[in-house]
């Protein structure tokens, strides 16, 4: 069996109750603009409140400001934040992947420097993987770091760097070898200050008109030796480990959840019809089942396994389901959404229609995920 059965313990259910009570009190409906899952707005004040509750860097060690808790605890907190549409943008990447990766591969000095600030919700990170010529094929990155006295001189261009303009740092996957032809062996990760000299951030408007994407150009950016993450030449393995944190979590099947909840809230009479009930029941059944798969992935991480295949299966299925939910909602409601509507439902529908195509692309396209999964299934 690929996925072991998983349920929440009484302690984990207690955490779920705490998070629900916190959100109802700190972020009552109608007092904020909810977002679609992890695309929700950034709000450093809200991130600080979560940190105060001990809900950032949960699985990081206490000696670095973390809470020595589990991946499942983080799952419980995260799913509640996402389904609420809470503004998670500021801490999202740091909490989900950069913190764990620094904790796993970083030096003692790096851990002391970055982890406590991540756990306080102060530092925000972006992701420095994609490039113009390296999308799904990440090993094709061309950004190059050349050895200089005391560090590295980095040149290249990173692309699709979400929130680079609002973040403090990003982890850059780059080539540190001499072009020996070893596609994987000459890759390394550097922790780069987004305010470095020689670094330019150019906005790329997304089709929804939001400033979200960026192009980050690095021209002779100096990165000191103490900011090399892990091993020089170990970047590929580290990056793969980082991707495992990016996949299989609740953000891969909850992006359109709130759309349906807000439809129920604003037009409850629709659900008197059997057609709507059927669609609702179908969606709820699938959420319930996919959530069980996703929870099983978190349990595997806690037991020290590396569920790369399972994560890929969940992300591929979950993101398609997110798009299915939107399609069902659009079939139920004959409405062309317009921007800046007062109704939370219509606003979310507007956002969802314009952003849903990205669900099956970001964090690894579904086609690549299927290849990853089929290798793990012993297909070849």
């Amino acid at each position: 069996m690929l996925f072991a059965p998983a349920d929440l313990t009484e302690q984990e259910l207690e955490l779920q109750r705490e998070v629900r009570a916190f959100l109802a009190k700190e972020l009552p409906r109608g007092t904020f603009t909810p977002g679609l899952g992890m695309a929700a707005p950034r709000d450093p004040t809200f991130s600080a409140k979560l940190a105060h509750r001990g809900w950032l860097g949960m699985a990081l060690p206490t000696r670095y400001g973390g809470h020595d808790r589990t991946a499942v605890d983080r799952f419980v907190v995260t799913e509640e934040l996402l389904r609420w549409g809470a503004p998670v943008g500021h801490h999202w990447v740091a909490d989900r992947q950069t913190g764990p990766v620094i904790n796993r591969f970083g030096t003692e000095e790096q851990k002391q420097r970055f982890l406590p600030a991540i756990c306080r919700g102060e530092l925000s990170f972006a992701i420095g993987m994609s490039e113009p010529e390296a999308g799904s094929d990440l090993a094709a990155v061309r950004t190059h770091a050349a050895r200089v006295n005391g560090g590295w001189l980095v040149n290249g261009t990173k692309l699709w760097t979400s929130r680079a303009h609002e973040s403090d740092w990003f982890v850059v996957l780059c080539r540190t070898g001499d072009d020996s032809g070893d596609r994987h062996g000459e890759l390394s990760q550097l922790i780069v200050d987004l305010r470095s000299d020689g670094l330019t951030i150019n906005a790329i408007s997304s089709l929804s008109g939001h400033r979200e994407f960026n192009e980050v150009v690095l021209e002779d950016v100096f990165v000191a030796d103490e900011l090399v993450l892990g091993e020089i030449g170990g970047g590929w393995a580290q990056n793969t480990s980082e991707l495992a944190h990016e996949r299989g979590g609740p953000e891969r099947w909850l992006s359109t959840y709130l759309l349906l909840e807000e439809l129920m809230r604003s037009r409850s009479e629709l659900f008197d019809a059997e057609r709507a009930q059927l669609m609702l029941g179908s969606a709820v059944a699938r959420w319930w089942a996919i959530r069980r798969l996703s929870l099983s992935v978190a349990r595997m991480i806690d037991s020290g396994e590396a569920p790369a295949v399972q994560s890929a299966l969940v992300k591929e299925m979950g993101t398609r389901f997110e798009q299915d939910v939107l399609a069902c909602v659009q079939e139920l409601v004959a409405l062309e959404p317009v921007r800046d509507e007062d109704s939370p439902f219509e606003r979310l529908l507007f956002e969802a229609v314009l952003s849903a195509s990205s669900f099956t692309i970001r964090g690894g396209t579904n086609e690549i995920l299927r290849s990853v999964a089929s290798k793990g299934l012993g297909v070849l």
Partner: protein
Amino acid sequence: MSDWLLIDGVRRLLGDTCTFEVVQAAEAEGWSPSVWDAVAGAGFASLSELPLADALAVVTVAGEHAAPVPLAEAVLAAWLLDEPVSGPVSVAPAGELRLEGGRLSGTAVRVPWGHAVARIVAVVDGQAVVVPVASAARFARGTNLAGEPRDALVFDCAEPEDTRPAACDLRERGALTRAALMAGALTAMARLTVAYARERRQFGRPIASFQAVQQHLVAIAQEASLVGVAAEGAARVPGSFEIAAAKVVASRAALTATRAAHQVHGAIGMTQEYRLHHFSRRLWAWRNEYGDEQHWAARLGSTVAAAGADNLYPAVTGGSAVI
């Protein structure tokens, strides 16, 4: 926690006895004495004494081997009576039956292996009624899409062996057994299809090396995994929510996964000579038995809608503990 020793024992036993030839022959003959004797001899026929989750794990193994015996019915009968049942027994899923002066009249339809079992359990006005098959005035043999016996039995003032209030909801628990069977059949179908794709060569290489084929294999694994955790979740907490949700995803998967599995197999999958049909036909049949996807989705949806928007996510996480 399930009793893995027991389940492994059943898996070995059914793996040894439910060979391709035996399952094939059972369809022609309507019964497999060799499988039933092996199961009864090993004591697994008293599945009824097992805790619910263990009994369902055994049912899943039966689905994995397309076992041509009414194991699911034995489990279901025991739940209805809240007591173990000995000997081959089946359950009437539907029909027009009435009790008059304690005697049973009317027709029970689509009874699994109705002609071959000793007695059946029918639910009439909330009463679980046990009647010997020999007391039926007449019966008509039929089959489902998979060729499994689904017989009609007509009773005319038959004397029940036992009548007592049904201890559970027939339709829900029936759907629960079907979800468990389907989880097993999907697991077997996923395994069979990967093995076939690795073996079958075209254009000088295994067809599993084609990305288009790999995508089908991944889709089958996803659906099998989804139904696996859903059936397992409903076995742990057999509430109305969980059972409905499990049958919804299982019945949906029966369409999508079998379509992909047949596509990978090509023409050989469309024959009686090759094992795929033991699973695909059962999945197509079981997806309708005890309510299809639409039935359970509408029922689940009406409960969820009535609970309102604020309870939507609590329902997704808490299921029948919440609604």
